[in-house]
């Protein structure tokens, strides 16, 4: 079931939550709405769910070609999962899951045996087979969120919507649940949209990432696309760590734009460097964990800070310590000139002769 939102505007008094936003979600995809708080991502999700309605006269929501703009939430066939689970405390897990089926009008309601079977099936899916008789207060956060998911799935929704589904969980549970959601979404193939402010979550989980900022969509693309080809300074800054420089005065040739970005893993550090693109830095702090060594560097000329991420092997090879000085060379940079069009360059950091490769390449 595809979801199409067209020209959605939503204002709360003087505050604009969504400004003429359009979005298309193809059938069966897992899509992330990613953005900082206040970017309008949750409002968009709630409008798709029918829990909120776009400003009168603005926009249209289609589910699989069918206009549902004015259809109330209960008849849209959506499953909605809330950040704080919103489980019914006075009902058991099984009663929670069955709720959507038991509130159906008598004629459409499945017989009790069928409801029980469906609940059992869902309990198995969320790996809580033996906990059907428990109350939500007796479950852990991760278990509660899985129950909330099962409750949403019980009514066979055409679209599954999740609002910061892992936001209230601790890091480990979040990771497990993420993997589990990915797996199970693939399996049942329901069109799924989830809201998150965690870029890692969005990149890891989604088929497609919708980056939102300031009531607008900044970019839509696969995780690879939005990470490697960011459409705006906002996207590059929001997705992962990045060094931002005022490009003027930078030793790189052709760097005449307003802002220049370098990812920490595109920063190379060398002890001796003879070329013309190097930057002299002092090492402030070295930290290594996992596969990477992270370094906090300070330029000796203008005291701008630079974050670098190099492999541990390379770090060991260089033998760098805090307080020492070294050279920094950028492998890959992105420029966003004032007009907003951006260029991208690969800088080959050969020890002998660094060169600007394919300076005309841009998007």
């Amino acid at each position: 079931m595809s979801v199409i939102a067209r020209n959605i505007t939503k204002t709360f008094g003087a505050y604009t939550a969504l400004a003429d936003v359009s979005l298309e979600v193809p059938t069966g995809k897992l899509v992330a709405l990613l953005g900082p708080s206040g970017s309008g991502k949750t409002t968009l999700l709630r409008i798709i769910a029918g829990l909120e309605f776009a400003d009168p006269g603005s926009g249209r929501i289609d589910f699989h070609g069918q206009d549902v703009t004015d259809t109330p939430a209960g008849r849209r066939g959506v499953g909605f999962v809330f950040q704080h689970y919103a489980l019914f405390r006075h009902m058991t897990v099984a009663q929670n899951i069955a709720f959507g089926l038991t509130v159906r009008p008598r004629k459409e309601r499945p017989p009790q045996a069928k409801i029980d079977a469906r609940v059992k099936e869902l309990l198995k899916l969320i790996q809580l087979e033996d906990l059907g008789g428990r109350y939500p207060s007796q479950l852990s956060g991760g278990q509660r969120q899985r129950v909330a998911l099962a409750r949403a799935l019980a009514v066979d929704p055409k679209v599954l919507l999740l609002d910061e589904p892992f936001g209230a969980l601790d890091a480990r549970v979040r990771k497990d649940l993420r993997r589990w959601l990915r797996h199970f979404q693939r399996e049942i193939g329901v069109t799924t949209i989830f809201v998150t402010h965690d870029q890692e979550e969005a990149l890891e989980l989604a088929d497609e990432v919708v980056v939102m900022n300031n009531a607008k969509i900044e970019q839509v693309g696969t995780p690879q696309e939005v990470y490697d080809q960011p459409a705006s300074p906002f996207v590059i800054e929001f997705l992962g760590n990045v060094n931002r420089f005022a490009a003027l005065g930078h030793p790189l040739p052709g760097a005449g734009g307003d802002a220049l970005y370098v990812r920490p893993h595109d920063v190379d550090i060398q002890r001796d460097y003879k070329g013309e693109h190097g930057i002299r830095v002092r090492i402030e702090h070295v930290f290594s964990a996992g596969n990477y060594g992270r370094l906090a560097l300070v330029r000796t000329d203008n005291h701008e800070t630079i974050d670098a991420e190099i492999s541990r092997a390379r770090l060991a090879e260089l033998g760098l310590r805090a307080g020492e000085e070294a050279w920094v060379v950028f492998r890959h940079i992105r420029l966003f000139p004032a007009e907003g069009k951006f260029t991208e360059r690969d800088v080959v950091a050969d020890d002998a002769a660094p060169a600007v490769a394919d300076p005309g390449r841009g998007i």
Partner: protein
Amino acid sequence: MSRSSRSVIPGFGLTLGYTLFYLGVIVLIPLGGLFYKTAGMGWDDFTRAAFDPQVVHSYKVSFGAAFAAALLNAVFGLLVAWVLVRYTFPGKRVIDALVDLPFALPTAVAGIALAALYAPNGWIGSWAQPLYADFVASLERLVPAVPWQAFLGNRLAFDLPGIFIALTFIGLPFVVRTVQPVLEEIEPELEEAAATLGATRLQTLRRIIFPAVLPALITGFALSFARAVGEYGSVVFIAGNMPFRSEISPVLIVAKLEAFDYAGATAIATVMLVASFVLLLVINLLQRWTRRHDAA
């Protein structure tokens, strides 16, 4: 520290000691005195005083009217709390403050005001009295098997309905003030979750919201009921205090005291106390049962 468990509040011994002392002086010693006084009169005297037909009838009136009033308060208190929590309208804060008025008003004032209003020549009584009398009369005609007049009286003021009106008045804030905070705390997400699952507004109300406020509603009912059982000041002015008809137990107690029959008064008081305690205990258990799912 030698103690294995330490609480945040310092001085467990001191606070517990004070609590026990306080409860002792304020509650237990007077109640103990009551039982002591009653115990001194012997079983035969006690039963004669406490289960005299007139007294027994007054128990029925007291507990029956209190129960009915608390029930009505539970319904309308819930409604008032709902309106105060869910809607914004001009004058909402004034109405919110008005709810507490029965707490603050001297009950005698309330009783006199209500009696004046519902009296046959009062503002409400002048038109509602004939309607009520007709209503009871037609019930008697339609279902002659039930002694309707004994249950409902046939006058608003100075009869059974007056007791019910006064007890409803004084009990309302208990329900509103216990239900209101619980209603406020119900997350909108619960209703939204129900809505996305296809529940109608009515189903959401019945299956989600009502169970969530039920424990608080029972508490409010219990408080309202307990208050109504012991109420004297407002009832005495509007009840008419007719023996075997509209006489409540506290009125009888006062009558006995005025006749210097202290033992008789304490006998009635003891029965009321025990009955109230048992009823409140039952209500408490019921409430615990409705909260069973909160136990982690």
